[in-house]
C-alpha cells in the first residue's frame, strides 16, 4: 500500500518540472538582435534618447521570402527616458521583441552628449550582464538621429560597415587603434588619463528612405558617413578634437605599431613613404623638481608605395632617413605643444610618472612643467617592386 502511495507521489513530483515555465527560455525569433546602440541627450528636457538598431532576420537572401516587398536589413527604435535604467522598462512600449544586446557591434554617442558626460553611459554598458564591454565607441558629429537612420551600401547592416571599416583602418593606417572600446574608456578615465575616440561624420544630407535605393545607387557616398578625426575625452567628457593629421602622430606616440603611408618632403621633393613603429621607449626622471620625459622611437620605412623618388645610394638613403626622422619629430613636438596648451596630456605623461615614480609629489602639474624630448630613428628597411620610378626623361634619349 505504502509503495503504491510512494510511487504515485513520485510520478506527481516528476510531473511538476513539466509544469514549470522554463523561466529563462526564449525562442530565437522572440529576440530583437541589437546591432548598434546610440545615445543622444536633450538638455532642455533633461532626458536621454537611446536608439537601438535591430537586425531584421528576414532580409537575408537564403530565408523564406516574407510578403510585402523588400525588407529593410535593420530597424531603428528610439526611446526617450530620464535615465538609462528606466529604458529597460520603457523600451517595450515600442519594441515587440525581447532586447538582446549580446551581439551588438558599435556604440555611438552624439557630440552634444559627449561634451556633457558619458559616465552614465559607460556605467550602463558595463552593468549589463549579457552585454560585453569590449565594443568600440564612436562620437557622431551633429545630431545622432540621421546617422541611426542611414542605410549603408555594400554592408547591409550599418554596424558591420562601421566595424569593418575600423578593422581595416587599424590594419592599414594610424588613423585608428584597437583601444577605442568601452573597456578602454573606463580604464583610462579611472586612471585620469585621456582617450581619443573616432568621429563619425555625415558626407551629405541627402538621405534615402529605402535600402533598395541605396543598394542600387552607384554613388556609394550618397547619404552615408565617414570615419575621420578623433574626439579627446578626459574625465568622461569630450574636451576637444583632433584632425586626421594629428591622429597619426597621436597614435604613433601612443605606441601603435600599425603602418601608415604619408607624403614627406625629402630635399624639397615629395616622397610618399610607408612607415611603421618598431619600438618605443619612454624614460621618466626628475631634475630639480621638473619631470624629464625622454621618448625614443625606432621607425621602419618602406618605399613600397613610393612613385616619386627612390634613393639610389647609401648617402641618399642616409639623407632621407635623417630628413624623415626630423619631420616626424617636428610633428610630434607640434602635437605635444597642442596637448600642453589644451591640457589634454595626450602623451600620457602623468600616467607614466605615476607608474615609474609613484611616490613623487607634484605629478598633477607634471604636464605643464615637463621637459619632453623626442628622438626618432628612422631606417629604410624594405623596398617595393620598383627599383627606380619611371620618369619623364625617357631614359636614354
Amino acid at each position, binding site marked *: 500500500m505504502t509503495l503504491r502511495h510512494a510511487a504515485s507521489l513520485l510520478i506527481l513530483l516528476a510531473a511538476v518540472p513539466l509544469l514549470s515555465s522554463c*523561466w*529563462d527560455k526564449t525562442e530565437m525569433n522572440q529576440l530583437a538582435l541589437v546591432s548598434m546602440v546610440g545615445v543622444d541627450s536633450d538638455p532642455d528636457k533633461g532626458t536621454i534618447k537611446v536608439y537601438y538598431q535591430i537586425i531584421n532576420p528576414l532580409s537575408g537572401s537564403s530565408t523564406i521570402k516574407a510578403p510585402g516587398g523588400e525588407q529593410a536589413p535593420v530597424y531603428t527604435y528610439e526611446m526617450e527616458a530620464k535615465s538609462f535604467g528606466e529604458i529597460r522598462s520603457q523600451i517595450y512600449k515600442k519594441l515587440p521583441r525581447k532586447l538582446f544586446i549580446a551581439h551588438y557591434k558599435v556604440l555611438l554617442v552624439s557630440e552634444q552628449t559627449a561634451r556633457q558626460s558619458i559616465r552614465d553611459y559607460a556605467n550602463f554598458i*558595463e552593468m549589463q550582464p549579457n552585454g*560585453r564591454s*569590449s565594443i568600440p565607441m564612436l562620437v557622431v558629429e551633429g545630431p545622432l538621429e540621421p546617422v541611426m537612420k542611414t542605410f549603408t551600401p555594400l554592408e547591409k547592416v550599418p554596424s558591420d560597415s562601421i566595424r569593418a571599416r575600423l578593422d581595416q583602418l587599424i590594419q592599414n593606417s594610424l588613423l585608428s587603434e584597437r583601444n577605442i572600446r568601452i573597456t578602454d574608456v573606463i*580604464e583610462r578615465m*579611472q586612471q585620469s588619463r585621456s582617450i581619443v575616440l573616432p568621429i563619425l561624420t555625415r558626407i551629405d544630407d541627402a538621405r534615402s528612405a529605402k535600402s533598395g535605393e541605396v543598394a542600387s545607387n552607384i554613388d556609394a557616398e550618397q547619404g552615408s558617413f565617414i570615419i575621420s578625426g578623433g574626439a579627446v575625452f578626459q574625465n568622461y567628457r569630450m574636451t576637444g578634437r583632433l584632425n586626421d593629421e594629428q591622429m597619426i602622430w597621436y597614435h604613433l606616440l601612443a605606441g601603435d605599431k600599425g603602418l601608415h603611408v604619408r607624403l614627406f618632403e625629402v630635399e624639397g621633393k615629395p616622397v610618399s613613404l610607408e612607415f611603421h613603429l618598431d619600438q618605443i621607449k619612454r624614460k621618466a626622471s626628475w631634475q630639480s623638481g621638473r619631470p624629464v620625459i625622454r621618448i625614443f622611437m625606432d621607425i621602419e620605412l618602406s618605399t613600397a608605395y613610393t612613385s616619386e623618388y627612390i634613393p639610389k645610394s647609401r648617402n641618399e638613403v642616409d639623407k632621407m632617413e635623417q630628413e624623415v626622422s626630423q619631420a616626424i619629430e617636428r610633428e610630434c613636438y607640434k602635437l605635444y605643444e597642442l596637448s600642453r596648451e589644451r591640457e589634454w596630456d595626450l602623451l600620457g605623461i602623468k600616467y607614466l610618472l605615476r607608474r615609474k615614480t609613484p611616490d613623487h609629489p607634484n605629478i598633477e602639474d607634471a604636464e605643464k612643467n615637463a621637459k619632453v624630448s623626442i628622438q626618432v630613428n628612422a631606417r629604410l628597411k624594405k623596398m617595393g617592386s620598383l627599383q627606380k620610378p619611371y620618369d619623364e626623361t625617357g631614359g636614354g634619349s
Partner: protein
Amino acid sequence: MISRFQFYLLTINFIIGTTPFVMLQGLIAIGKQDAWIWPLLTGGAGVLAGMFWLLLFRHYPGKNLAQIPLEAMGRFPGAIVSFLFFVYFCNLSGWILRNLSDFLNGTIMPATPAIVFHIMFLLVACYTVAQGAECVVRLNQIVTPLLFFPFWIVFLLATVNWNWERFEPVLHLNPVVLFQHPAFFGFPFLETISLTMLFPFVQQGPGRPFLLGILTAAVSLSILVFVIIGLLGADRASQLTYPVYTAIQEVAIGEALVNIHSVISVILLVLIFIKFLVLVYGISETLQQVVRPRTRWPHFLSLMILLTAIAHSMYENPIQNAQWSEEYSIYYNTFFTIVIPALLLVATWIKRAYQKRQN
C-alpha cells in the same frame, strides 16, 4: 581507499571552490596591483593551520573529524562538539548554494528562481555522497582535466588584452595592509577543515597531499589574481562584482565565437560543486557518526530541505554578505577551525596524561 594523488587534487579543487566568485573583487580592491602576492601569504597561513590539524589527527589515526570528539570527550559532550561541526558545515554549504544562485541569477540565467539551482545541486550531491567517499574523490579526479584545460586555455585566449603596465608600480603596497584585513585568512583556507572528514580513507597518510594541496591551491589562486589584474586592471576589477566573468566575456575566438562566457561559467560551476560535495559528505558523515541511522535516505531528504532553507535565508542582500565577510567571518571561522580543535587537543592531552598516571 583514496590514493594520495586523488586527495591532493581534491584539496586543490576544494580550496579554489567558490573563491573566483566571491573573494577576488574584495582582494583586488584592497591589494590593488599587488594583490596577487596575497594568496601566497594567506596560503602560508593555511599551511600552518593544516599542520595544526594534522597534529590533532596524529593522536587519532584512522579517524575522521566527527569521530574525534566522541573519543576525546566521551559520548555526550563529544556528540555536542560533533554537532557544532555539523552546524558549521551546514552553514558553509548553505552559503555556497547561495553564492551559486546569486552568480547564476546575476549573470547568465536571471529569471530562474534560486531554489531550482539549490535543488538541482543538492540532488546530484546527495546521490554522489550516498555512493560513498570513493565516488566523491573519483568524480573529482575525472572532472579535474575537464576543468583545468578549458579554464586556462580561455585565459590564454584572453591575453590579447594583456597589458604589463597594469602591474606598475610593482610591490608598491605596504604588506601590513593585509593584516588589517584578516578576512582573507579565513576564507578559503580555514574552511579546509572539512577535508579532514576524508582523512581515514587516504592511503599512506593524508598529511603530505593535504599540505601540498593547500600550497598548490594558494599558487593557483595567486596566478588567477595575477591574470585578472593583467587582463582587467586593478581599478576595473575592484569595481566589478564578478571579475572572472567579465574577463571571460571579453574573450573572442576569431570573429565568430565572441560570447563563450556561458560555457566557461558553467564549467566553473563544477568547482563550486566539488566544494559543495565535500561539505555535504562532511555533513552526512557527521550525522552518521553521531546518530548511526539504519536507513540513510530520510537523512538526505531532510538535509535537502534544511540546506535549501539555510541558503534562502543566509543573507538578505549582498551588502550584508560583504559586511559579514569583512568584519565577522574571521572570528566565526577561527572559532570552529582553531578554537574547537585546540579544545580537542587539550582534552586529548589531559586524557593521555590521566591514562598514563593510571598506568
